């Protein structure tokens, strides 16, 4: 069996399991851990697709920053197990089936669309990282700057939100 395929199956299986356990777990910490698993698996898949840079950024930013932030907040708020209220009848009865239907249809479409998607000519894009950097600073320079601005605004927003107003 082709090792790449093997790796794919393993990682994909892990990712799906992680996602499932994200839904299944009742404690946010456990959900967070499951999500981290998913992210790491995805990073692995990116590596498999030869997107090293993206993979690493995925781990550094998602795994190292965002999820840590989540963890931090969960610990800060000392969030316990989530209570299973069902005030929303709609979500109680229709929610799950609908979401599953969405999943199924998406997957089915993806499965049907394979014809229109070309099979990769090469497993790796040579010098992808270099291309990405040049692209970021040439074609996408304005969006790039914009995102930096966005981050600045986000920082301010977070500060404003989180600080206790002084009495």
């Amino acid at each position, binding site marked *: 069996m082709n090792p790449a395929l093997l790796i794919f199956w393993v990682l994909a299986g892990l990712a799906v399991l992680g996602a499932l356990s994200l839904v299944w777990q009742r*404690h946010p*910490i*456990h959900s967070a*851990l499951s999500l*981290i698993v998913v992210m790491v698996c995805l*990073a692995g898949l990116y590596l498999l697709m030869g997107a*090293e*840079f993206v993979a*690493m*950024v995925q*781990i*550094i930013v998602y*795994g*190292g*920053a965002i999820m*840590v*932030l989540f*963890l*931090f907040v*969960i*610990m*800060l708020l*000392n969030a316990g197990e989530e209570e299973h209220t069902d005030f929303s009848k709609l979500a109680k009865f229709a929610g799950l089936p609908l979401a599953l239907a969405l999943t199924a249809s998406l997957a089915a479409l993806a499965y049907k669309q394979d014809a229109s998607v070309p099979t990769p000519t090469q497993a790796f894009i040579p010098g992808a*990282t270099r291309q990405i950097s040049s692209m970021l600073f040439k074609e996408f320079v304005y969006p790039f700057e914009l995102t930096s601005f966005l981050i600045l605004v986000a920082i301010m927003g977070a500060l404003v939100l989180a600080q206790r107003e002084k009495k």
Partner: protein
Amino acid sequence: MISFLQQNAFWIITIVKIALLLFIVLTVNAYLTWFERKLVAHIQSRWGPHRVGPHGLLQPAADGLKFLFKEDPTPDGVDRFVYYLAPFLALALSLTALAVIPFGPDPIKLFGQKIDLWIANPDIGLLVLFAITALSVYGIALAGWASNSKYSLLGGLRSSAQMISYELSLTMSVVGVLLMANSFSLQKIIEAQARPGGWGVLGWNVIGLASGKFPVPQIIGFICFFTSAIAETNRAPFDLPEAESELVAGFHTEYASFKFAMFFIAEYTAMITVSCLATILFFGGWLSPFPASSFFQVTHYIPSITLIPFGLWVIYDGVKYETIFGKLILPGVGFAMFAIGAGLIALPGVNEFIQPIFWFTAKIFVFLFFYVWARGTLPRLRYDQLMNVGWKLLLPVSIANLIVTAGLLLVRGAK
């Protein structure tokens, strides 16, 4: 049998290398603790460990045994899964980091196999390291949370916040180096610091004369990097997650015996990793500080020159040591050192091969010494000070450094 070995040589070699590296690192860890305790003790004008073995040299072994045989209670109301996961996570990650560190340039030839002095050398080695560093926070944070103890929780909170904060300056301060090397590969980064014709120490990134007319020093970057690195590894003076005066022992308050040992090892391994990184990024990795001209040929004997006198001194010291045990052991050790030194003189080939590794380890040792020195001398920061240093000092400075570096390189023309 042979054929099997032939076919799967790569895997086998890798496994062996991993085992070897683990052994070395763990030993180094062990003796790092001894070294640290001794040094700190002397800084505080104490003797430090001196009962177990001569100069307490067997202290680490004793500690190891203690860790193994101590009772390992699991506190009540902990989240078992996470509680057990945390230390494994910490240890595994810190050890994994070592996998991408290159210890020497040219491979050894053994049994007709070329064996590189690294386990893996990806093009994005540095990113991998950062990724692992980024993940390593989980060990501590989860441990703190899972222990179901206020001290631990606070420790975990502190560490997670602290690590996130300092990761930024850590990464930022390195970008300058990346600009100069045009690569994420650690090996390339090191090679980029060797100026053709060999300028030795001048080529290193701290001075940054690897090419062009004027230097682009990364000294500021280095300072930021090392400070942030200390914080990343939760070492003094940034060891708030385990500030014993406030939080008993912080995130590992509830951990005993071997799980505690795991955190312990993880921490020291992280120290080593960081030292390696600092060496590689700013101090030319395995490059010798001396130019590679024939005039400086003599410098190749520095290993012997250091080993032989030291060995002699150890013998002398052993002879006049109080205990019998010491009288027996120390001269042997001293003689071994002397022998190695002499042997290196005798076998120039080996000597040449040893050079990079020697320099590399020497530099690492220096940084480890720094670590301990800092712990021994600097007082612990208050939490708000910590955050201020991270966000208001290091981050802006490293960004400024990046901008200046970029400008200078633009003027100089990157190679």
